[in-house]
Every structure is written in C-alpha cells, then in structure tokens.
C-alpha cells in the first residue's frame, strides 16, 4: 500500500508550476475584468504535453491517467490560469477512444483544440442524460442525433470558443463528433472572466457518431468533475497561504491577528477542508485507474469537497484580510469569482452531492 504521489507525479506538478510561473496570470485575470486580453497559454499547454495528456501513444499522446490531469489542473487553479483544457481533455479522451485517428493526433499535438458539450449521466432517480439550461434549476434534455445530424442546445460550455472540434453527448448517452464550424457557438463569460464559456446550438449539424459507449461518455463527465475539483483545490491552497501570511504579520490590539482564535480556527478550517479534498483527489485518481466502477462516486465526492473548500476558503480569505480583501486591487476577489462560478458549473457542487448520495444509495439497495 502506498497512498502518496510518485516522484514522476511530483515532478509533473513542479514542471507545471514552473511553466506557469513565467506568466503573470493573476494580474492578467484582474486586467481582463477591465476588458484586457488574457494571455494565450495554449502554446505552453502544447509544449508541456498537456494537450495530449490523456491521448493514447498510438495517437501521439502521453497516455497518462486522470490523476496526472488533476495534478496539472491543481497548478492551473493556483494561479487562475486560463487554459482551455477543461473542454479539451474530456473531448480528446473520447475522440482518442472512438474517433478519427488524425483528429486525435492533432488534438494530442495541440495543433487543433476540442471542447466538450457535456451531458450528465442518469442517476438512481433520473433516467435521462441532461445538459445545463440557459437559466434556472431544471436541466435540459441532451441533443439528439438523427440521420447523421445533431439537433439541440447546450449552455455554459467551457472553452468552446476557438475550438476546432466539439464532442457532444447525446440523449441516449452516446457521443458524437461535430466540427465547431458546423455549430452555432455564442461565446460568453460570466463573473469569472478567466473561464471562457459558450452557448452551443446544433441545428442539424453534420455529426460523426463516436465508437464509444455511454460508459465512456459518463467517464468523460466525471473526468470534468474531477478537473473542476482539482482546480478548486489548487486555488484554495493559495487562499490559505496568502491568508496565513497576512494573519502572521497584520497586528490588531497589539497582537498578530493570527493569534486570535476566531482567525486561527477559520484558517485551520480551510486546511481541514483542503486536506479532505486532497484525500478525495487521490481517491478519484486511484479509482479512475484501479476501480472504474467507483469513479462516479469518487469524482463527485472530490468535486463537492474541493468546491466547498474553495467557496469557504475565498470567503475566509476576504474576511481575514478585512476591508482590503474586498478591493479590486487585491487578489482575493479574483479567487472568490472563480469559486462562485465553478460552484454552479457542469451540474454544480449540489449536483455532485446528489450524485454521491445516488451512488451510495444504489450500492446500499444492491447490498440490502
């Protein structure tokens, strides 16, 4: 038994941190709120091999595991780096398994990009594949395929702008490959400008059915859940580090504020939540590789745990910093924006909680 990262995995993290340290991503995130352009980190991603991280070697990829992808996302989250991998990785995984080999190779190389019009798999109490609605709490039916064309709409799709390929999950759980040019992609950002989103509408768009199973589509959904979680965990760690540093040096009533229980216990709570999330990231990584039937549970639990950890951490960061933490010049609000959007993305943290319950109740019913 060995439940820690391998040297290779530690090295992958360090390499990612190094590569990202060359760009002032957090400053860029702030400028972007005033309309500034975000740096294009895709070349960095391609050179680092992140584009082909999950693509098989026969298609020129690194054939690494979801855990490695999570470790990269942890580093992306630390510095709020805007790299369109949340769409690209799950999509490339499906194309690699059941799509055009040439496209898979292009995606692995990074010369072309893919986005993932995801659908949430059915649960113990919901039998449909559903997608994000434009507004409100009622999920929408996934697009349908008929005589080679896809029709339907998927909202709040990450990284669709500028993608060459779209992988769309259908109402029956299968997945189809659509050229982005054949779909109506309406770019938008909301609240967190480091997260490019789009409303994607398919109106009889020519599509190729992938030779993958609904299980593959589900695995791609849960991969996206785990990636959102990893990103949140990285951001939460930074919120903790900056808050601890400030609490040690900022004085009030003749003492560092970190010596007061209210502040100290709040900071420990960030650590407690992050530590639980890290254990679940390892669980999700281990399950993806050794217990595929537990990946739905593990990835959902990890996404929930990390999402709630980041939500709490960014609020604590703001309040520990006092008023200054709520000002435009401070980094805390940028991490807070990330937390607030991520919390509602791709089924939301609440959806992940529901899925954890569903998976465990299903197990319990089977055992009963």
């Amino acid at each position: 038994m060995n439940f820690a990262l391998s040297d290779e995995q530690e090295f992958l993290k360090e390499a990612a941190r190094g590569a990202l340290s060359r760009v002032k991503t957090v400053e860029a995130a702030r400028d972007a709120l005033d309309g500034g352009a975000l740096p294009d980190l895709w070349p960095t991603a391609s050179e680092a091999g992140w584009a082909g991280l999950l693509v098989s070697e026969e298609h020129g990829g690194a054939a690494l595991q979801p855990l490695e992808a999570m470790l990269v996302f942890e580093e992306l989250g630390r510095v709020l780096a805007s790299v369109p991998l949340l769409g690209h990785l799950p999509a490339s995984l499906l194309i690699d398994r059941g799509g055009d080999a040439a496209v898979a190779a292009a995606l692995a190389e990074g010369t072309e990009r893919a986005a993932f019009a995801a659908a949430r798999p059915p649960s113990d109490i919901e039998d449909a594949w559903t997608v994000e609605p434009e507004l409100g709490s009622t999920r929408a039916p996934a697009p349908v395929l008929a005589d080679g064309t896809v029709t339907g709409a998927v909202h709040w799709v990450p990284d669709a702008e500028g993608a060459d390929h779209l992988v769309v999950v259908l109402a029956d759980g299968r997945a189809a490959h659509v050229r982005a040019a054949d779909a109506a992609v309406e770019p938008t950002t909301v609240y967190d400008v480091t997260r490019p989103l789009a409303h994607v509408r398919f109106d009889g768009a020519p599509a190729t059915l992938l030779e993958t199973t609904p299980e593959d589509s589900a695995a791609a959904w849960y991969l996206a859940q785990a990636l959102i979680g990893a990103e949140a965990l990285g951001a939460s760690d930074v919120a903790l580090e900056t808050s601890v540093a400030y609490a040690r040096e900022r004085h009030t009533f003749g003492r560092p504020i970190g010596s007061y229980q209210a502040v100290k216990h709040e900071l420990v709570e960030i650590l407690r939540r992050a530590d639980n999330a890290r254990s679940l990231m390892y669980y999700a990584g281990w399950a993806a590789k050794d217990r595929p039937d537990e990946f739905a549970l593990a990835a959902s639990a990890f996404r929930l745990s990390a999402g709630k950890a980041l939500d709490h951490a960014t609020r604590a960061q703001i309040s520990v910093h006092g008023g200054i933490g709520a000002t435009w010049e401070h980094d805390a609000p940028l991490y807070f924006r990330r937390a607030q959007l991520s919390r509602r993305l791709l089924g939301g943290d609440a959806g992940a909680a529901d899925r954890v319950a569903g998976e465990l109740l299903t197990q319990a019913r089977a055992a009963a």
Partner: protein
Amino acid sequence: MDLNDTPELATYREEVQAWLAEHKTDAPPPHGEGDAYVAARRAWQKQLAEGRLAAVTWPAEYGGAGLGPLQQVIVNQEIGRAHVPGIFDIIGVGMLGPTLIAHGSEDQKQRHLGPMLTADEVWCQLFSEPAAGSDLAGVQTRAKQQEDGSWRLSGQKVWTTNAQHATFGLLLARTNPDVPKHKGLTMFVVPMDAEGVTIRPLRQISGEAHFNEVFLDDVRLEPGAEVGPVDGGWGVGLTTLMFERVTIGLGGEGFGWRADRFAHALLTDEACTRDPETRHRFGEIATEFLALRFTGYRMLTGLQRGQIPGAEGALAKVTTIKAAIAAGDLIVDVLGPGGLADDRFGELVSDLPGLKSAGGTEEILRNMVGERVLGLPPEPRLDKGIPFSELRAKELA
C-alpha cells in the same frame, strides 16, 4: 404589542404624506449615476430640509425638526412609499452632524450644520486607516500643532464614502504618540479642498467604487479646527460610532434586502419554488429578515424610551450580512451561471463579503456583545497602558 400610530403620530404622518404629495414631482429617481444625478439628489435634500424632513431628530435651533426616532421612522416609511429618494448625505446628517452637536464648539455648529443639512456642503468620515480598522484607536495619521496654533496633518485614510463629493471631513488623528493609544487622539474638521488632500477611488469586488482612499500630505488646518478637547478625540469618535450603529442596525431593509424581494426573485424559476431544499433554505433566510424587521421595532421602542442603542444593533448587523449572503447564494444556486450574469444578484454576491468588515468586523462585534452584554471577560490586552510609539515599534519588529 402595538404597531399603530398614536393620534399625534398619525397626524404627523399625514403632514409628511401631504408634503411629499406636493413636492414628489421635484424628486429625482431613487437610483442613478453621474454628477448630474448627485446634484439632483443634493437639491432634493435641500427641499427635504426646508420641509423639516431631512434631520427629524436634530434640535430645531440647528434646522432639525426636534422630534424623536418614531417620527424619523415615519419619514423613512413615507419616503419609501412615495418611491422618492431620501437625503443624500446620510453620513453627515445621520452621524457627523449629531457628533458636532454633541461635541463641537458653538462656532462650528453655526458654521457647519446649516450647509450640511441642505447638502450645500457634503461631509465624509475620515476615521479608518489601512493599519487601523478593527483597532480604530491605532490611527497613525499625525497632527502636529504649530507655534501659531494651526495644525499640520499627514497620513492616509481609507473606506471613505462620498470623499469625492465632500466639502468637509471629520478626521481622527494622533496628536500625542507618547501616551497609550486611546489617550493621544484628537478629532478635526478638515476642508477637503485643502492643499495636500488627495482622493483616490477604491473599487470593490463588483467593480463599483463605493469608497475612497484619502491621502493627507502635510495639510494645514486653521487654529480651532479640533472638535472637542485636544487628545480627547476617542470620546468624540465613540459618539459617531454609536450613531453609525443605529443607522446600520436599522438599515438592512434600506438596501432592499427583504424577504419579499427575494421571494419575488425566486419566482423567475417557478420550478424551484416547489423544490423542498430551495423552500427550506429560503424559509430560513426569510425568517432572519423577518426577525430583523421586528427587532427594529423593539429597538425603536427602546430608543423612544431613551435607552442607548448598542448591542442589538451589533447583532442585527451580523444577522443582516449573514442572511443577505445566504440569500444571494440561494438565488444564484437556483438560477445557475445565468444568475451571476444578472447584476442585481451578481453584485449582491460580490459586495457582501466586503460588507462583513464594514462598521466593525463580525469578530469585533461579537467581542463587544460578549463583553458588554453577557459580561464575559475580555481577551488579555497586550497594548493596555503602553505608549503608542512603543506599540508601533513592537509591531514593526
């Protein structure tokens, strides 16, 4: 248990209604942007002042109506019903004016209260500093008296509302660093157009700039600019904070944070109104807002009986922020990413974490209530009786 007006109050309410009915056509809309709007709001305050509705609780000799908190509430209620804005300079008329009335010299009252009331001169509060937030007595802005009795002022203030519109500011400065920190402070009236005063807007998470930073670079103040005794500024400041607490404590509904408003927001997604969890969360949030409304009536009953407000206001502030945060989260959870795109809710979610620190952090308020109301022992104070200059040296060490 009775929320009806007494006959006298009913009569007063009718007078207020009549005045508003006659003048409301002159009023600007309740919300707006830009200099022209600010000018209109100031003009409207002047009209309210002429109608004796701007400073209901100020003594008549200073242009107020010389009435009590109940009349103030009636004015607020009727102004709300008439869908017209209230006074523009809430901080001046609500907190700083009363402070001048309590501690200012007769000259200062005669000079300042009139123009403040009519908004011909807007005021701002210059207390907080980057290194003196919760611990207000730690202000470092230095005021040194000159041979001729004038003062030289240097330092930085922050979280200043309306600084960009203000003619004067009420400023807390350190006049003696060699005594314990509460004992070496003095309150001053500062002309905001004085040489050496620089104002810089401070943007919030939402991008709005509700506050400013104010830099003071060797600013000269005329002799007699001090309010209350030299080195007696802490007591003067406490008066202001007491009036601030009343304003904040009773203020929640003023921000439009009301159960009915959030219920209306939920109706944009009818499906969620049948979801047990959404209903449960909303029921708990709404209950806190309802409690705030009736806590307000209890506080008013106390004020009217001459009780000095304090703890209830502090707890009401904690509840207000807590409930408003929960409400913003709920609505955006229900509406999804599209909810964050809606400015009404996006800004609510954005501004509130910051407001936790405004008007005393939650920690400070809980300490205050725990010690003053529950009689719990204070934390050990390492700064008691130590000259301010030594404290600073220790912190920087």
